[in-house]
């Protein structure tokens, strides 16, 4: 798992550029992003995968939960991918359609990635911005809390949360998201600290605008660049964390599945020979993460023109 501290190093430069270039930056960034072929291709791949995850199930001949009673018990010999029986990706050990399950699993994995990241970004940004803006003792206490929380082993808390509040999709989203806001909070605080002494903030304060308004109107919009890049880099982490949770058997409830759960099940086939059970979900998993990395790198380069 990539740590927050590493990102802090990565992202330095970004806010400065926002300031200098003002609004035209987004247009510039878009142009630069579009020039990055790998990133654009990855973006299209991501869109295709997202479409598959939504439309795949309606297009499939089977639902994700139906058992094909003609195949059950002879999956190793008859469950391989086939257009005749409608199992385009073959079936899992229980003779359920892997095409439908891959689509549905991809959907869950993407949702975990997006929702988890959204929570992490939301909490982390607000927390970091408040700590950085208010400063002083509040800042010290708030950041000490972050330090303590980050000394608690990540997986331990996630496992406990999942057993404490029961296993639900909601808990996985929140659990994974809640554990990743710490890095976001540190970065946002750092950026806020450097922003808060800029002239326009001083001006706003002098004209009697409330602290909350300043954070909302002036600080947060200026953090958009950092947040955007961090978000794309965080999504693959979330998807990977979910896959580990699924491996431990604490993931989403059957008959729903996720890419991580499908891969964990498919890993058995390495010994048993029904390798299609591993190939398809693993391919979606790898390609999705791959694409997110390229989009993330592309965005960072686009928003931080110093590199060019």
């Amino acid at each position, binding site marked *: 798992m990539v*740590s927050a501290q590493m990102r802090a190093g*990565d992202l330095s430069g970004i806010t400065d550029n926002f300031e200098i270039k003002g609004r035209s930056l987004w247009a510039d960034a878009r142009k630069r992003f579009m020039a990055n072929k790998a990133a654009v291709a990855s973006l299209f791949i991501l869109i295709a995968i997202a479409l598959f995850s939504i439309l795949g199930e309606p297009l499939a001949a089977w639902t994700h939960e139906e058992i094909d009673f003609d195949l059950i018990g002879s999956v190793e010999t008859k469950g391989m991918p086939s257009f005749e029986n409608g199992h385009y990706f073959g079936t899992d050990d229980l003779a359920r359609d892997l095409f439908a399950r891959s689509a549905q699993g991809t959907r869950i994995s993407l949702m975990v990635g997006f929702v988890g990241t959204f929570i992490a970004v939301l909490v982390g940004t607000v927390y970091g911005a408040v700590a950085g803006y208010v400063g002083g003792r509040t800042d010290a206490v708030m950041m000490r809390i972050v330090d303590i929380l980050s000394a608690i082993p990540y997986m331990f808390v996630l496992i406990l949360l999942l*057993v404490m509040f029961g296993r639900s999709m909601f808990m996985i989203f929140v659990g994974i998201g809640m554990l990743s806001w710490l890095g976001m909070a540190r970065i946002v605080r750092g950026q806020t600290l450097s922003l808060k002494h800029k002239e326009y903030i001083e001006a706003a304060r002098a004209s009697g605008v409330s602290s909350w308004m300043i954070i909302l109107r002036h600080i947060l919009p200026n953090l958009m660049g950092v947040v955007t890049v961090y978000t794309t880099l965080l999504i693959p982490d979330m998807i990977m964390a979910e896959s580990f949770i699924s*491996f431990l058997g604490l993931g989403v409830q059957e008959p729903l599945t996720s890419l991580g759960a499908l891969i964990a099940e498919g890993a058995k086939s*390495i010994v048993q020979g029904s390798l299609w059970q591993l190939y398809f979900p693993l391919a979606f998993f790898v390609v999705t993460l791959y694409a997110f990395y390229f989009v993330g790198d592309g965005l960072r380069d686009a928003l931080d023109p110093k590199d060019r």
Partner: protein
Amino acid sequence: MFSYIARRLLVAIPTLLILIVLSAVLMHAAPGGPFNSERKLSPEVIANLTAKYGLDQPLWYQIWAYIRDLVLHFDFGPSFKYKDRTVNDIIAQGFPVTLKYGFWSFIIATVLGIVAGVVAAINHNKATDYLVLTIAIVGAVLPGYVLAPIMVLFFTLYLGWLPGGGWEDGEWRYLVMPVLALATGYIASIARLMRSSMLETLNSNFVRTARAKGLPEWKVITGHVMKPALLPILSYLGPVFVGMVTGSVVIDMYFSTGGIGKSFVDSALNRDYSVMLGITLLVGALTILFNLIVDVLYAFIDPKIRY
């Protein structure tokens, strides 16, 4: 510098105390106790068990007793599940194992990761770059639970070169697969990080100046680029080391190494409170220690930072 280190270490004490309290409260709030079994135990037996492990005391007292024994006797208490072993036993047996393969994975991941990252950056946007990047990303996202069975199948069954599991006090043949499996993901992350950090440094003004002075490219890289480019890696290494020590559950499960990764996950699932708390504390302390080491190293490398 020394006062800085002393201050950081002092702050670690309340941090660890809060960690104990927080974990204990969280654990006791989780449903299911450590003594659940297939058969519903009679109230007398439950009473005997809770009395034996002091769970009949109020939570604040349990926490206080725990901290007292820890400070006075360095005693982490008995395991609730592994009834003829103490938490000290479990850590003493499992931690050296994890530390050993964690250490070697760390070395390999760092060296290979940095080399790969440098190679990719020097060949920016060439075929080599994309090849390294592709391998790196695939390596980073391939889950350990897919990699491990493939390795056992290949090295043990097909080639017959390595034993399929076990530890034997870390004899090298038993060490190879755990180290490779654990290092793979980190090699990839470090390579990616090194690459982007290198690229950034290569484009900076002082490197252009160095080039303009007519220095040969390899001298520019070794003399001017490497050191600043390594800085972000350094801050990543603390968490990597801790991650290797803690994230080893897959290794322990697939290679029967007997490290603390498996004990840790088991303890959470078994509600083995004392083991869970002991390992959490150990990992927490390690996290603090490594973050400190990294910060101190930073100060040595980067003259801009003063404490």
